[in-house]
């Protein structure tokens, strides 16, 4: 039984997850593009690559903007979180090896102790985000159940991955949890607020264009 579940989540489910993620993301892009063409032509009329990149550049560089300097802890955590979140799943040795086994493609991977620390960083960061949602009233006010669920969905694959890697109790069951939660995370990205990952370049780029080209002002 365990085995069947395992081979399902390791096999077809992976395909499903990746397909949902890619097709979902593409769908979101295309439908937004169409919608924008129809009702927000202003976005295309005023988009400027130079000013878009200028703004994006300032927002993906730690402490480049005023608000990042105002919230140093959040800035450090957010950057660590996003870097680790992005790097670990792709460069974890176990993941790379799986790719190698399945499709015979591979790339350099992280030494396991480093990955281990990065996973812990992600978890700590999630705790930090969770704490913000509980203790900062301006964040609490904006938080609804879905924010906690999404945060849990983000933390789950990391916690379970750490668990399974260290082979704590019932780790093979936890391994399944890890895989499933990772797949769920991948699948919900296009359809929840996690889509900020997809749309960030566009929202920031558009505002950067308006601020730069039309209003001759900074937006960071």
């Amino acid at each position, binding site marked *: 039984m365990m085995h069947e579940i395992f081979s399902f989540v390791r096999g077809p489910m992976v395909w499903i997850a990746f397909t949902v993620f890619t097709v979902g993301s593409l769908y979101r892009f295309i439908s937004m593009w169409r919608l924008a063409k129809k009702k927000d032509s202003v976005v295309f009329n005023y988009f400027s690559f130079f000013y878009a990149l200028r703004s994006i550049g300032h927002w993906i560089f730690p402490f480049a903007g005023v*608000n990042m300097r105002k919230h140093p802890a959040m800035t450090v955590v957010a950057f660590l979180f996003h870097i680790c979140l992005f790097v670990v799943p792709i460069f974890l040795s176990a993941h790379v090896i799986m790719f190698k086994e399945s499709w015979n493609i591979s790339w350099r991977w992280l030494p396991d102790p480093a990955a281990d620390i990065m996973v812990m960083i992600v978890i700590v960061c999630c705790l930090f985000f969770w704490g913000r949602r509980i203790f900062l009233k301006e964040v609490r006010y904006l938080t609804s159940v879905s924010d906690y669920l999404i945060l849990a969905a983000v933390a789950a694959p990391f916690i379970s991955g750490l668990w399974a890697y260290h082979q704590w109790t019932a780790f093979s069951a936890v391994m399944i949890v890890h895989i499933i939660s990772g797949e769920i995370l991948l699948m919900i990205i296009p359809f929840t607020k996690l889509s*900020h990952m997809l749309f960030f370049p566009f929202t*920031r780029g558009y*505002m950067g264009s308006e601020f730069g080209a039309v209003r001759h002002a900074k937006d*960071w």
Partner: protein
Amino acid sequence: MTKQSPANIATIPDEGIDKGGQRLTTDQITRVISRHLEEEGGARLKIYMETCVHCGLCSDACHFYLSNDHDPKFSPAGKVKQALAPIIRKKGRVSVDFIKKASEIAFTECNLCRRCVMYCPFGINIAYLMLFIRRICHKLGVVPQYIQDTAHSHSATMNQMWVKEDEWIDTLHWQEDEARDEIENLRIPLEKEGADIFYSVIGPEPKFRAQLIYQAAVIMNAAGMDWTMPATSGWDNSDMCMYTGDEEMVARLKKVHFEAAMRLKTKRIVMGECGHAFRSVHDVGNRYLGWKMSPLSVIHAIEFYYELFRDRKLRVRQKYSIPVTLHDPCNVVRGGGLHELARYVIHETCSRFVEMHPNREHNYCCGAGGGVINCGPPYTKKRESSSKVKADQLADAMARGAKVIIAPCHNCHSGLEDTVKHYGLDMEIKFLGDIIYECIYK
């Protein structure tokens, strides 16, 4: 939530909202909103609403939040959560009370200053979202009375203050006469075709601050400018319809304004010290008409003064010696990048300048902009208490010696006057033009 919590009911009596609300039913609201969402709710609305990660980082941008004891209801995303999210979630099936509250939030708890755009990692434009609500309120007819009246004035007279055609011309004649007592043969050239400059002002100038037209005439005269003003409508560049969400009227107003300048064959429009008017001609109204940028170049007074000093057209007799600080108006700084030019003019004309902090693009809004002050007396208290950070910021500049606040914007002027009075600050507020008028060779 089935029960309506008290926080969700509009608290301030306002005839426009109350009587407007009385005419509505939930069905009507649903019909109007769903149609509006269908017609105008596009990708920006969708992405802004969905991309927001509810991180609260925009809170520190907003003077409403900062001034009201960090009450999260006043944070930018908090206002969206209260006033817009339910509309989208329920596809417009919201109650009359909800709409009334949403109207109060969108019209009187956001100055559309766009400061939060610089604090949100995604550049989510809360001002756009608040305007989206305002437009819904416009379509439902639940707009605060005072600003709606102003919008009516715009529609009936093409100016903000019910100024009639003859009253406008008469005011110019009168200011010309006054000015001739000081400078012989000074002229306010009306309808001079082919002049270089079309000078336009906002409705309140002829109504309440006619001496500003006088001063502008003196400056134009001293600099030897070839300028004119129209004797027809189109002289008023202001635009409260931009803030009530009546986009069709915005388009009409801007058409009249630009076409007056085009009819007179002037090469550029120089406008008085007003921020929202600049936004409406430089950024907003032109778009509604299909002009990517304004068809004739539009020069805000700050830039114009800068040019006059740079080109040595004006000469300073004696610098203004009382220490000044500068309030960077949102609409010409965050909306027009004129902050360094304003400082240039100040350095040319004033001997002591004290920066307030934060400044430039990061300056706090005066609390009056975005049509908030135009919503009138019912909201004065709220506006004043929501300007506490502004008062602190001014008090700090005052502690470092500043006695005069230069605010090159009408709205800012009125807002700062209230703030200074309410918080008992011993500061005077001036336009750049006031300073220039005082210290140049005429």
